[in-house]
């Protein structure tokens, strides 16, 4: 019996995380949907959630994080319906919201202790864990100062620390790199690569460069629906052999945009170097290797 229990415990521990979103909608009134009939299966690893502003990314993440409830549909974690049993999710969740605040009168250390208490964790390891998180996020110097005196980037890092307090098995970061300087962005990317080894990480952003270097899978959203989901190669394949670069007169740009999906423009001695996606490129165009940003812009502009 004891061996059986041990084996069951081990199997439970090594059970891979499964997040299932089935036909989820969030309706504000009869005809207004923030999210409509959205389905997605998420497994261990990093999922990059891309979409323009207003695509419904934050709405989706708030529902997964049990902050808000869907109007229709089911969200389940390891076959547990988290709409009915929110605490199942909350026990193993780390969530960094997009627009969050903190109590300005507490310092970072006190705030993290408070969040830990809310999450229901403590014990002798809590203090060293908080200290090491603060140290790793370059906040040790500031840890004893009131949060009200922090810069935006420092607050963002405290936000990241709180998401990692409880050794989470599912981590949701909504626009996590806002306010971080380039060096901190790199450190953050390394951090979540480490994190993704044994849990689900959902990383939402509208900045493709935050996602393309680390995400195992990418989901692209627009107007509350899922446009495409898959690994990066699969998504990039939608624009393979369709990405070109050409030099045009700056006055011709407006017309050019009506004919092709323009990804970017750079100034070149009075003219413009345009990177674009097209089935019928201009005569003097140079073919370019497609990347995730090309695919993202193509999918969101043509769907």
């Amino acid at each position, binding site marked *: 019996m004891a061996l059986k229990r041990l084996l069951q415990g081990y199997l439970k521990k090594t059970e891979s995380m499964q997040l299932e979103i089935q036909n989820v909608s969030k309706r504000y009134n009869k005809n207004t949907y923030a999210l409509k009939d959205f389905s997605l299966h998420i497994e261990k690893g990093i999922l990059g959630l891309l979409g323009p502003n207003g695509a419904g990314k934050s709405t989706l993440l708030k529902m997964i994080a049990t902050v808000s409830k869907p109007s229709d549909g089911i969200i389940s974690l390891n076959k547990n319906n988290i709409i009915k049993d929110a605490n199942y999710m909350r026990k193993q969740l780390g969530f960094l919201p997009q627009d969050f605040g903190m109590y300005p009168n507490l310092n970072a250390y006190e705030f993290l202790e408070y969040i830990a208490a809310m*999450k229901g964790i403590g014990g002798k390891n809590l203090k*060293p864990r908080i200290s090491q998180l603060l140290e790793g996020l370059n906040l040790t110097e500031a840890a004893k100062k009131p949060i009200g005196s922090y810069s935006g980037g420092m607050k963002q890092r405290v936000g990241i620390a709180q998401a990692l307090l409880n050794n989470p098995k599912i981590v949701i970061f909504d626009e996590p790199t806002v306010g971080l300087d380039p060096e901190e962005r790199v450190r953050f990317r390394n951090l979540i690569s480490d994190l993704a080894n044994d849990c689900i990480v959902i990383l939402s952003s509208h900045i493709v460069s935050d996602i393309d270097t680390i995400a195992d899978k990418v989901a692209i959203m627009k107007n509350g629906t899922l446009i495409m989901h898959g690994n990066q190669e699969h998504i990039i394949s939608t624009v393979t052999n369709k990405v070109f670069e050409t030099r045009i007169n700056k006055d011709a740009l407006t017309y050019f945009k009506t004919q092709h999906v323009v990804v970017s423009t750079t100034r070149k001695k009075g003219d413009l170097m345009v990177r674009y996606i097209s089935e019928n490129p201009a005569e003097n165009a140079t073919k370019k290797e497609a990347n995730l940003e090309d695919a993202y812009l193509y999918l969101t502009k043509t769907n």
Partner: protein
Amino acid sequence: MIPFFTIIKSDYLQRTRSYAFLITLCVSLATAYTFIPEPNANYSTIRVDDYIGYYNSAWFGYVTAIMTSIFLSLIGFYLVNSGIKKDIDTKVGQIVATTPISNFKYLLSKVLSNFLLLSTIVAMVFIMSILLFILYNDGFSFELFQFVKPYLLITLPALFFISMLAVVFEVFLGKYSVLQNVGFFFLFSALMVFSPKTQSQFSFDVFGSKIVMHHLEEKVRDITNSDAETNLSVGYVLGHVEKAKKFEFNGIDFPTSFIISRFVWVLFGIGIIAVISIFFHRFDRKEHLFLKKFIAATKEEHKVKDLLLSSLPIASINYKIAPLVKTELLLLFRIGKKWLWIINIVGMILLAVLPITIAHQIGLPILWFLQVNRLSNLTTKELTNKVHYFAFSSYKPITRLLSSQLFAAVILMFVLSLPLIIRHLIAFDYSASISIFFGGIFIVLLAALLGVLSKGAKLFEVLFFMIAYSNINGVLVFDYFGGFEHKAFYVLKLAIISLVLGSLCAFVRTYQLKS
């Protein structure tokens, strides 16, 4: 000039398009409904000795105008005293600071926006008074001017002054909300005590109601042919209404000096705004300097160690609420400036040394009222500080987080009243000690419920102010801490009400979390 009015309009719309304002409007209307008692009601609002007026247009107009002037002056300050703070919190102030608008125009726009907001409530009360006149029809003809005149000459100038005061307090005491609340409390009490007797003195009455009261007293003296002092009561007086005799009141012809004085008060208010605009911080406040210094200091950072999550010690499960209560206490303690705690300590000393009746009837409600900002923030701070995403997705947010908030606040109220509780215990007056304890629980639960319901601090602040003011004036029905003699089962009733408040609070918060 058009952009100036656009600023006022935008500010006004921003403040009125809120759930809290809607609740305030409903509460105001409900209160206005009671200004003129229903013919068979067992209370009176304005009464001179045993006399009240016939329910004619003048009585309706003047009584509701006076009651609105007093009540809305009392609570209006708390409704509008965060216009500048809102601009600081939302960072709109920093944008305002970079525009060409002068300090005077900005502050005046805030005064006018405050005034518009209060005038909206006045307009609703005005309509309500006419509807009540029709409803209680006593056979008198409807005279619109008898309604309009007192509102124009009594209520509106008084509310303009209050709108101005709110801005003055914000400019000078912006960082000290406790001092704003308490300062106004005492200023209002002092203004109410002012009792002019001559025509020239009436001009100095900012609320404009004393001249009408004087006239009512004169009228009753004429009827009774007596020169003796009459007893005029303004406010809710319960009982003995069946004895009330009626007299005819047909309004007053306000002396020219009084009419001019109303305009002078308005101009005086504008003049004060012009003067204080010199001292306005224009959103360049000291803590910003501190912030810059601090960020500069932290730029000299040492080399950062790489964070390897898999190697971090794993914290164990701990569902005890003690750490939450500890932080909630810390948060309560840190609201406002540290030195303001000296006032609390002085209050506690006074509870220990004042005659026990005074300490209980006056000292305790004032000391507890000083905590108004702490209590009004109790269940609203998650939303105002945008911590709700963490709080509402925490493990068991009702049984753990909400409970710890309530528990911490009750501890605070208990500790503050401890000197008085000990004195009662020494005197073997156990029921007084228990009443205080339950009174603390009651006010904490009231704050929590109103915070959860309105999602803002204002509703409780306004109500607590009214309760505290009534407590100091010895209004028995508002005694929630056993300061006065009560019938049997007083504590039991208090406990039951507290239980209902607590249950409602948990129910509403649960519903909010589910939706």
